[in-house]
């Protein structure tokens, strides 16, 4: 219609002409000119409305009015800065919290792996009465790969924190070893260089594939990274390619930065008793159902497991059969752990937003009452109610956008906070929870719906009043009609109810958290600093680690401000664990489970530093070294289980492995139980053996340090790091954290779960 547009002035002229013609006619009928003029105008009616209708009939009116409404809305909002700021802040919090939680849900629960046809991918895992138990050993994998015809390709991988040397400096990186066809199977294409292929399993030459994330962070995105050499376990790998930015590996929450050929794990490849793989992933042949493939691969697995020497009970419990699980979203460890808290959290932030919406609706309603005079005048001068409603809704939506934009920014920060809420033990959870179109669409929809909800009510209310009466009441603007008072009261009631729910949730969170902090962990958990120390590649094989541990302890104990220090494989409540079979003379295990014990290799000073009390016998000393009598300590639970009322001191423990024993350890002491996996479960049975009389030499240990002055433990970090570098510059230090903080991390998740539970009741 643009080409046919007539200027408003032209139309105005036409109307004036009409009135003149009409007046002429009336004068002709005998009226006085003045009278005729007035009568003509009266007969024409409202000139303004006629003009407006013309105007409306020929423009992209909607767009035009939107501009008008926005300008007017901005003016209104500027007139009441306090209201605007309060409302925008409320909305920012509501929308921000929702966006943050949704982006986490998106990362953990909704998003599919960025690979080709993720729906065809399956994980192969063993299962038994205890549920899923991880993939079978490598020799079984090679048989499956060769014999399972309903799966086109199959790939195995295992991930861990790996210690690399880059330019002669040690560095800890989250990495994995994977089959050569890993990337081909997934259909991941390189952003730079090439990815691995089956040929690379020959390790000739050995190649490494790095992630886009790591490439940017560590190498500044330099394309010259291709061909760069990095070393791992004294072997040199050449960086051959970079994976695309959207590919984070198959473990949600644990981005993989370096991938190496799985064949470097030489001795594990032929060990039919080593359960070290993280996952076996395969692609279903087109047209083959998962059940078919499962039946077929299970036959292979059964023939493998029947040839193994595992006890029947263990097989029943863990390795009974092979299962195929969907792999479209990556491994579901994280989903299992987080789906409930995330849904609960989504519910809570949903409530918060609902409350914010009700709150703003209420404020707008109050504003609507004070603006009734204005609306009445606009109605009386010919504004159509629908137009005014639209204007009000536009104003509200404008307000919501004012809040939503900073809200989305605020969400980025919120994601970090929630991530720390979910971190357990020592390792953080890193989710690729960024803003993507799904998250943005979600925020936009949430904002629109909330805006419409809180905008339409007051607008609708405002025009259900008679304009004449409103004008009459104009002076007494605060008066309120019965209907709108009821609405306001309902909104207030809703707000109070929602606040109560949230308050109950918050109180539960705080109380659970406080209760958990009061739980007796069995050890001194304040003022203890811990850090992981890893020796360079080859030290363990060369038998140098024991000497390093002695020097480390000596160096750390010499630092002023250190009260005591000890080393251990892991510390309690760190999320780490070790265990194995145990043989005790005079004790017949009733089940396979009963014949196992948790195990920690510790140095002298460990129990003192953590304040774990000795109940009987003696603690370890610096004379419990290689060559001396092998000794061990056990905890109360182990003493009760294995010896009942007998005195365990002087008895011996054996740790058989594949039928052979490493020699007996004489029990010299009993220590108190401590919490181990979490604050709720009682302590399991534990055996402690000296780190310098190890069953298996450690490459990585945890150093625990108690400070002489309370709350000054963080000040010891730098001197300790200097001390360790002087012992050996190749020592890699990571995960520096106080025990208190490490425990609180776990406590927060637990408290959050409890709070969500209360809220949803």
């Amino acid at each position, binding site marked *: 219609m643009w080409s046919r547009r*007539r200027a408003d002035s032209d139309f105005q002229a036409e109307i004036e002409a*009409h009135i003149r013609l009409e007046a002429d006619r009336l004068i002709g*009928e005998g009226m006085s000119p003045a009278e005729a003029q007035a009568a003509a105008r009266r007969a024409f009616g409202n000139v303004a409305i006629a003009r407006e209708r013309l105007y409306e009939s020929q423009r992209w009116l909607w767009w035009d009015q939107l501009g008008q409404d926005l300008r007017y809305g901005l003016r209104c909002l500027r007139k009441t800065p306090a209201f605007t700021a309060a409302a925008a802040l409320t909305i920012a919090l509501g929308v921000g919290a929702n966006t943050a939680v949704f982006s986490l849900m998106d990362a953990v629960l909704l998003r599919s792996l960025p690979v080709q046809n993720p729906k065809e991918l399956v994980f192969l895992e063993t299962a038994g009465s205890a549920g899923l138990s991880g993939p079978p050993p490598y020799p079984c994998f090679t048989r499956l790969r060769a014999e399972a015809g309903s799966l086109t390709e199959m790939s195995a991988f295992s991930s861990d924190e790996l210690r690399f040397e880059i330019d002669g400096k040690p560095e800890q990186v989250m990495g994995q070893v994977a089959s050569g066809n890993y990337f081909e199977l997934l259909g991941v294409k390189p952003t730079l260089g090439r990815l691995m292929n089956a040929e690379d399993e020959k390790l000739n030459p050995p190649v490494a594939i790095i992630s886009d994330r790591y490439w940017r962070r560590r190498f500044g995105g330099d394309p010259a990274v291709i061909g760069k050499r990095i070393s791992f376990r004294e072997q040199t790998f050449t960086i051959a390619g970079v994976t695309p930015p959207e590919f984070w590996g198959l473990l949600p929450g644990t981005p993989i930065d370096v991938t190496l050929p799985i064949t470097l794990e030489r001795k594990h490849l032929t060990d039919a008793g080593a359960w070290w793989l993280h996952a076996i992933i395969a692609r279903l042949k087109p047209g083959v159902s998962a059940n078919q493939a499962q039946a077929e691969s299970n036959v292979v697995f059964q023939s493998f497991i029947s040839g193994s020497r595992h006890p029947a009970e263990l097989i029943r419990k863990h390795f009974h059969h092979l299962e195929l699980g969907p792999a479209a979203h990556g491994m579901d460890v994280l989903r299992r752990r987080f789906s409930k808290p995330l849904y609960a959290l989504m519910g809570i932030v949903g409530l918060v937003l609902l409350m914010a919406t009700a709150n703003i609706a209420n404020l707008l309603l109050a504003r609507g009452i004070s603006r009734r005079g204005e609306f009445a005048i606009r109605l009386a001068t010919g504004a159509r109610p629908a137009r005014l409603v639209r204007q009000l809704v536009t104003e509200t939506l404008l307000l919501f956008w004012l809040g939503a934009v900073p809200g989305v920014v605020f969400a980025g920060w919120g994601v970090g906070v929630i991530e720390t809420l979910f971190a357990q033990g020592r390792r953080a959870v890193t989710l690729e929870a960024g803003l993507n179109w799904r998250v943005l669409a979600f925020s936009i929809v949430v904002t629109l719906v909330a805006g419409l909800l809180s905008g339409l009510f007051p607008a609708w209310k405002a025009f259900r009043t008679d304009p004449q009466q409103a004008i009459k009441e104009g002076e007494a603007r605060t008066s309120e009609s019965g209907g709108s008072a009821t609405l306001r009261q309902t909104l207030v009631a809703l707000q109070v109810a929602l606040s109560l729910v949230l308050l109950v949730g918050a109180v539960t969170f705080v109380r659970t958290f406080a209760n958990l902090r009061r739980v007796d962990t069995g050890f001194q958990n304040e003022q203890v600093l811990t850090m992981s120390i890893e020796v360079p590649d080859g030290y363990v094989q060369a038998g140098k680690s024991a000497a390093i541990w002695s020097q480390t302890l000596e160096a750390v104990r010499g630092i002023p401000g250190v009260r005591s220090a000890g080393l251990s494989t892991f510390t309690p409540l760190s999320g780490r664990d070790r265990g194995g079979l145990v043989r005790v003379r005079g004790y017949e295990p009733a089940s396979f489970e009963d014949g196992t014990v948790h195990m920690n290799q510790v140095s002298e000073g460990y129990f003192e530093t953590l304040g774990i009390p000795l109940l009987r016998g003696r603690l370890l000393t610096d004379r419990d070294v290689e060559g001396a009598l092998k000794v061990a300590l056990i905890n109360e639970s182990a003493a009760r289980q294995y010896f009942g009322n007998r005195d365990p001191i002087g008895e011996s423990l054996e740790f058989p492995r594949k039928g052979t024993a490493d020699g007996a350890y004489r029990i010299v002491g009993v220590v108190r139980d401590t919490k181990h996996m979490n604050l709720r479960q009682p302590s399991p049975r534990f055996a402690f053996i000296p780190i310098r009389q190890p069953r298996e030499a450690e490459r990585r240990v945890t150093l625990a340090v108690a400070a002489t002055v309370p709350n000054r433990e963080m000040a010891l970090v730098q001197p300790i790091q200097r001390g360790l570098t002087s012992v050996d510059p190749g020592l890699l230090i990571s995960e520096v954290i106080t025990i208190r903080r490490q425990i609180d991390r776990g406590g927060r998740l637990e408290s959050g779960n409890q709070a969500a539970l209360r809220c949803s009741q």
Partner: protein
Amino acid sequence: MSTRKPEDERMVLLQGTLDLLILRTLLFGKEHGQGISRAIQTLSGDELLVDHGSLYPALQRLEAKGWVEGEWGTSGNNRKARFYRLTPAGRKQLTSETRQWERIAAAVGRILAAENPAG
């Protein structure tokens, strides 16, 4: 004063019929808005009242559809006015709308004239 009826006794035109009447008025030649409104009033025996507020948007609408063409000109008593003329498309539209109106009027008339509507 002439035989003019008081304004509130006249019928206000139904939406839609105004378009038809405008087109019919212009069948005799070009006319300006006030003239159209007078013609409708006169031809209806002073029964119909044209709301001027609706007349001009209606003219605008018809012009936009290409059924009439507007042009500034001078009236008989030397006043400037915008004159409207029927286009060929408008003439066709008038024919079809007239036929339609006649059918509706006849149908409504039959119903109203029936002796025993309920049967």
